[in-house]
């Protein structure tokens, strides 16, 4: 058992491997090159690359164009994450498993919904990204099952099975899938923010990163609820918000009821979102004078007009968060942070390639696509 404060050699080895893997990810110049390519050229480029070549070759017979790119990068993501899970030792392995459970939730919900709505097996299979602990074999087995009860039984060993069992009382009840999905994500964050393994290096920083992610997600979801045509009560807000962030849920409940600018801005300025948002807009608009108050007023205007967040600003906030994570991972080189940084960078590499392929398939201009790229 390693002494507290002493980093085990296996952890140092794993962190070094993740740092090396991170260097293999696509740099900015490569994105600039890919942006100049057509979709067939992107397919050729990815087919020649070490990271995606195998997937492109495997899927070439079944898919074409942007769909092929998306499927190939998704498969590559699943492979890379499962490899990361295999490399991570001890406590890091547990944390990685918990972190990747997000993909399991998406997969299990897709299988359940497919079964509920009698969607063809292959169609559901194409939607699954087995990047978590629930592997392809188990997912294939789940797809062969005919009823939700059988699926629940087959998932007995899954970490979120108690949540499923508690909520999935009646198969096919209206709105139950959304409620289960929401509860699964709440449990997912609760598990990640739970007591860290003893002597876990970088865990407080990872928790801080996740808490801020929760704050951002809660704020976005609050705006979405506010934009909806129907008014919602405090129970719905309570059900939608994820506990565990820095901002208490009571503050979101207060924000929801505010209809005056001054009150909204004053309350919103107290949150930790404002400085990051201000920085994101400063970088996006190349406007060095954009202050926190301007950011709060920007949110108020969208709030007042009942309009959802600007996607470009959302992406800019994500860029800043990744940048901060990257800096933290450099400060704590032998901790959970290099692993988290690698997983996040790999995820956004896949998202970037997908965004480029999809954007080009829809004929969007390059400048527009570039705004959705996270570097």
């Amino acid at each position, binding site marked *: 058992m390693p002494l507290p404060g002493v980093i085990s050699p296996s952890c140092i080895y794993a962190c070094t491997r993740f740092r090396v893997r991170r260097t293999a990810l696509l740099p900015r110049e490569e994105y600039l090159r890919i942006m100049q390519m057509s979709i067939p050229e992107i397919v050729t480029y990815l087919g020649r690359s070490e990271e995606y070549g195998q997937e492109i070759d495997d899927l070439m017979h079944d898919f074409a164009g942007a*769909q092929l790119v*998306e499927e190939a990068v*998704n498969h590559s993501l699943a492979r890379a994450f499962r490899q990361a899970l295999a490399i991570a030792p001890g406590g890091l392995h547990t944390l990685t498993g918990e972190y990747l459970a997000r993909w399991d*939730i*998406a997969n299990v*919900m*897709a299988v359940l*919904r*497919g079964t509920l*709505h009698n*969607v063809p097996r292959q169609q*559901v299979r*194409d*939607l699954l*990204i087995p990047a978590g602990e629930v592997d392809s074999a188990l997912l294939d087995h789940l797809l062969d099952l005919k009823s939700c009860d059988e699926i629940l039984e087959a998932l007995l060993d899954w970490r979120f099975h108690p949540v499923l069992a508690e909520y999935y009382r009646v198969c096919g009840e*209206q*709105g139950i*899938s*959304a*409620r*289960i*999905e*929401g509860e*699964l*994500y*709440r449990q997912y964050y609760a598990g990640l923010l739970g007591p860290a393994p003893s002597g876990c290096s970088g865990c407080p920083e990872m928790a801080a990163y996740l808490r801020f992610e929760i704050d951002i*997600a809660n704020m*976005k*979801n609050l*705006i*979405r*609820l506010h*934009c*909806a*045509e*129907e008014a919602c009560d405090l129970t719905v807000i309570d059900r*939608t918000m*994820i506990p565990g962030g820095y901002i208490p849920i009571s503050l979101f409940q207060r924000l929801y009821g505010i209809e005056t600018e001054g009150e909204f801005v004053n309350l919103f300025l107290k949150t930790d979102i404002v400085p990051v948002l201000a920085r994101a807009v400063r970088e996006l608009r190349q406007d060095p004078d954009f202050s926190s108050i301007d950011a709060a007023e920007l949110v108020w205007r969208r709030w007042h007009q009942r309009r*959802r*967040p600007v*996607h470009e600003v*959302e*992406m800019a906030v994500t860029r800043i968060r990744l940048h901060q994570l990257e800096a933290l991972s450099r400060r704590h080189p032998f901790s959970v942070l290099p692993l988290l940084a690698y997983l996040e960078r790999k995820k956004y590499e896949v*998202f970037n390639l*997908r*965004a480029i392929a*999809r*954007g080009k*398939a*829809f004929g*969007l201009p390059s400048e527009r*696509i570039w705004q*959705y790229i996270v570097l």
Partner: protein
Amino acid sequence: MPVDSIKPTRSGLLLVRQRLTLAERIHRLLSMKLDGMMLELIRITEQAVLQRRRLEEQYTGAREMAAVAAMMEGETGVLLAALSVEGIPTYTVGHRNIFGVQLPALEPAMVKKTLDQRGYSIVGTSSVIDDAADAYEELLAEVIASAELEGGIKQLLNDIERTRRRVNALEFKVIPELKELRRFIEDQRDEMERQELVRLRRIKKLKAMRPGSR
């Protein structure tokens, strides 16, 4: 009674006159209906043109939202959200009466949904999915509105065609034939009257020529 079997008598003439009056009244009414339907057609066509333009704009917007959603969430994410939809959007068919023509009135049902009705979890999706869902819901509503107007135009055009055939038949066949028949009967009756007069005068002359009549 068919036109051919009408005899050139006073009752025949009355019958023809009656039919002619009726035909002229129907012609006038149908012409007025035709004018009304034409005005309604113009009105609905203008609406349909605007509606079609709105539909095209909405379609472009929805495609763009789908593109952004596919870029941010991937087609996988969009399809997963689509898989969650529990209520299938549909419409109910009613009718509205314009100059006796039954035009379709389509009422969207379960097209615009609340966040709860959409079936996906707010926590598990992002706002692009809401934007795409909103855009496609509005597009579907526009499609139904366009279908209602364009269905109405088709129905109205069919009815205009039918009414125009009737008006033309009355104007160029029935009424001229009845007028011809009336003139024929009147001529026949005049002829008969003249024959009768000649016959009476002849009788009178014969009576005057008879010996001992003075």
